[in-house]
């Protein structure tokens, strides 16, 4: 589950003049033709660096993303929900595995990525720094955070890097289950008892701002990423993803008679664009920089899990083991 919101920090598109112009031209022509880049191909350093950053952030978002819904794994009501909740959280761990593997093909080891996550050097989707207070929060995450992630991921699956696209195809297929499961659970609450409905409405109110943040700051505030668009690393802008999400899901929320905590939210009939109150982007920045409600807990849980598993890994490591970069 990743919305692409906080991927791109200011990049210096310098160093390109250091690249071999013939190879660069061949690389760009391949992307232009719509062909994928594979790990053994020549690629500019900037491409490699930006992809590692993006895929790594995506991978971290999956493993951290397992925690908010994991909050309810032991409390899911009834057999159907219990099994699905277990499978859903498991899938997030599986997605992290797939994405770490894709990033590894670019030359960064999983060890280094995990270290950088836990020690706060690399980021993950902001949304997972918010707490899941009730079962309803968990259903909202399963439905709407996955929905948002799918919007971003379907766009990125058309990108240029083969291993990332393959991972995304698989992830999107699995998340179609999350989406349906989440929607089903939300519908049950929305059409259920007054207590269930209230629980859901409150959760929706809590998650709306993080959901609007999920795709990142508006394009006019965002860093210029022309070269990454050309190289098919960045496939859709933050606003495009947000608009698509609103267009697909706000009607589905409203049809259940639920409200969203933004009186300005509506679709402009003339432009076809959704209009809304800008969410608090200062809050977004604060949370990215570590000061959200759950940042410290999320990282501490990951650290504890790594520490508690250390004896297992140490005991099983063969002295003959050698690491080589995975192939695809």
């Amino acid at each position, binding site marked *: 589950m990743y919305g692409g919101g906080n991927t791109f920090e200011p990049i210096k598109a310098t160093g390109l003049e250091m690249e071999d112009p013939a190879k660069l031209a061949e690389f760009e022509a391949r992307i232009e033709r719509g062909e994928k880049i594979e790990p053994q191909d020549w690629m500019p350093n900037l491409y490699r660096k930006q992809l590692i950053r993006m895929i790594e952030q995506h991978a971290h978002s999956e493993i951290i993303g397992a925690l908010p819904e994991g909050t309810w794994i032991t409390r899911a009501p009834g057999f159907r929900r219990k099994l699905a909740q277990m499978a859903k959280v498991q899938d997030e761990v599986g997605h992290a595995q797939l994405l770490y593997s894709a990033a590894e093909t670019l030359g960064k080891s999983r060890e280094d990525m995990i270290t950088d996550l836990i020690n706060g050097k690399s980021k993950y989707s902001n949304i997972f720094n918010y707490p899941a207070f009730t079962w309803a929060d968990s259903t909202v995450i399963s439905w709407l955070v996955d929905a948002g992630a799918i919007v971003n991921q379907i766009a990125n699956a058309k990108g240029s890097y083969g291993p990332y696209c393959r991972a995304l195809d698989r992830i999107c297929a699995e998340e179609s289950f999350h989406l349906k499961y989440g929607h089903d659970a939300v519908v049950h609450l929305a059409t259920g008892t007054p207590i269930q409905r209230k629980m859901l409405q409150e959760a929706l109110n809590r998650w709306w701002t993080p959901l609007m943040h999920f795709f990142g700051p508006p394009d006019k505030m965002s860093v210029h990423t022309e070269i990454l668009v050309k190289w098919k690393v960045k496939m859709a802008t933050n606003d495009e993803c947000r608009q698509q999400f609103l267009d697909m899901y706000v009607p589905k929320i409203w049809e259940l008679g639920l409200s969203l905590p933004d009186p300005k939210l509506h679709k402009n009939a003339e432009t076809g664009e959704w209009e809304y109150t800008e969410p608090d982007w200062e809050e977004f920045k604060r949370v990215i920089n570590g000061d959200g409600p759950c940042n410290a807990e999320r990282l501490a849980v990951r650290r504890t899990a790594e520490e508690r598993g250390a004896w*297992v890994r140490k*005991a099983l490591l063969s002295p003959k083991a050698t690491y080589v970069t995975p192939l695809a």
Partner: protein
Amino acid sequence: MKELAIKELLYKMADDLLILGHRNSEWTGIGPILEEDIAFSSMAQDKVGQSWALYKMLQVLGEQEPDTVAFTRNAPQFHSCKFVELPIGEYDFSLVRHFLFDTADLLRFDLLSRSSYTPLAQLATKIKGELKYHTMHANTWIKQLGSVEDEEAFQRMQYALDVALPFALGIFEEGPYEQSLADEKIFAGEVHLKSLWLEKIQETLSKTRLVLGDVSLISPELGGRYGQHTEFLQPLLDEMTEVFKVDPTAEW
């Protein structure tokens, strides 16, 4: 008599699988390595799925629907052995429990695949492969961690095995209908199962440095089959049913 006996058998099996599946699901997202996290979660799901199938069988026999049975009873009404309700502890304990329980489970379902009670025989046949993977997983882990030179790991595994053994022996606590089940060729009985189990786990452990305590000198942790549990089961159930009990008549 026969129906009572079948129900008793189904209840203890279903309760064991539900509670252990629930416990093992706690590892999802916090396991020792991503890949193992995924594998362990799948097996927890299988257990919960198997328990569901057994509760459905009970429903056919006139019991309440599975969600009601699983999510509204209190600890004294559970027939699970004490072993499955113990907290997950560290990975050493969870692995050892997985090995000891799943070996018994595989053998139990293997016996049941020849049961005169057709629904059980059919289920046993269907899930044979699932259980095979579970024991393949357990045996591989036990063989490897039980044979490593790493002293910390070895000591942890041996300690976990020593702690787990009396509880594992509680799996085979005899029920009130053993004779009836055997006479009707429904299930060969806990005593028989226990001897098969001992042989099987010895076989695996003999390929490791781990030593199994002398079971003739150990008093098994009994009582679970009759509703006597450790202090861990009721809090587990309170947690598991927290949302469901907000309104047990609602659809979730």
